[in-house]
């Protein structure tokens, strides 16, 4: 199934357990704002090379959320993880050198600390960097305000409403997992966003 370019939001962020609350918040905010979240985690095809998969997703997405907050050294290897800056670079490259709709790409860069990126990735100092403080509520607020600005849509609800809905969804999620026989602590990306879409539709019909 193809997803419209103008509605696709590519999420570039860590896939570590401690980052899951922020990742879920991003996915929920994107769905609530009427867009389709895209992630390298949506595919199961083990035959496709990972970078190729990411390049395809970036090509198919007008919007990009790039969270560069994972700057700590990996506990096992003692080395930093460079995947997020690499994917940010691919996205910026597509916007700069791509043709047609690729030049219309819009992105937001987020970090957990306000000015840390200036030391770590000084080349992006000219970009607007938003800070989520490691808080899912702030992550939702940043994504909502950004999508409102870049889309110019007037129908996107305010961050307090989205955060209230998110808290409600999180409260319902264990029961939804029971109904679907999903594992709450082992949800795939598709499990997540599809339940979010249906949950938001059900909630809207109640009103």
């Amino acid at each position, binding site marked *: 199934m193809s997803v419209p370019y103008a509605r696709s939001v590519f999420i570039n962020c860590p896939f570590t357990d401690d980052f899951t609350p922020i990742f879920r918040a991003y996915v929920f905010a994107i769905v609530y704002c009427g867009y389709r979240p895209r992630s390298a985690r949506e595919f*199961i095809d083990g035959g*496709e090379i990972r970078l190729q998969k990411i390049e395809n997703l970036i090509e198919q997405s007008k919007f990009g959320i790039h969270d560069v907050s994972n700057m700590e050294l990996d506990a096992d290897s003692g080395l930093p993880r460079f995947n997020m800056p690499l994917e940010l670079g691919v996205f910026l490259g597509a916007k700069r050198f791509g043709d047609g709709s690729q030049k219309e790409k819009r992105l937001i860069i987020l970090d957990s600390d306000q000015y840390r990126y200036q030391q770590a990735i000084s080349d992006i100092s000219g970009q607007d960097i938003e800070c989520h403080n490691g808080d899912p509520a702030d992550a939702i607020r940043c994504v909502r305000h950004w999508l409102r600005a870049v889309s110019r849509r007037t129908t996107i609800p305010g961050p307090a409403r989205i955060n209230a809905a998110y808290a409600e969804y999180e409260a319902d999620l264990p029961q939804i997992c029971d*109904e*679907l026989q999903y594992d709450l602590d082992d949800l795939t990306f*598709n499990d997540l966003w599809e339940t979010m879409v*249906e*949950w938001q539709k059900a909630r809207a019909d109640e009103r």
Partner: protein
Amino acid sequence: MAKTKSSSAKAGSLKVGRDAKTGKFVNLKDGRKIVVPPAGGALSKVQIREAVRKVRASRLEAAG
């Protein structure tokens, strides 16, 4: 490498089976956990919709 009890399922070009201990799908070659749709295919949108609406209805009922 994880012990497996079945190798009938496939995901992409990977040969996969279930870990005998955890029951989760793994790559038979290196034991890494992977995700494949459950037997009979992934849940349809209709199934997800019905489950979600059931939960919402019970919550609304509980709230009075």
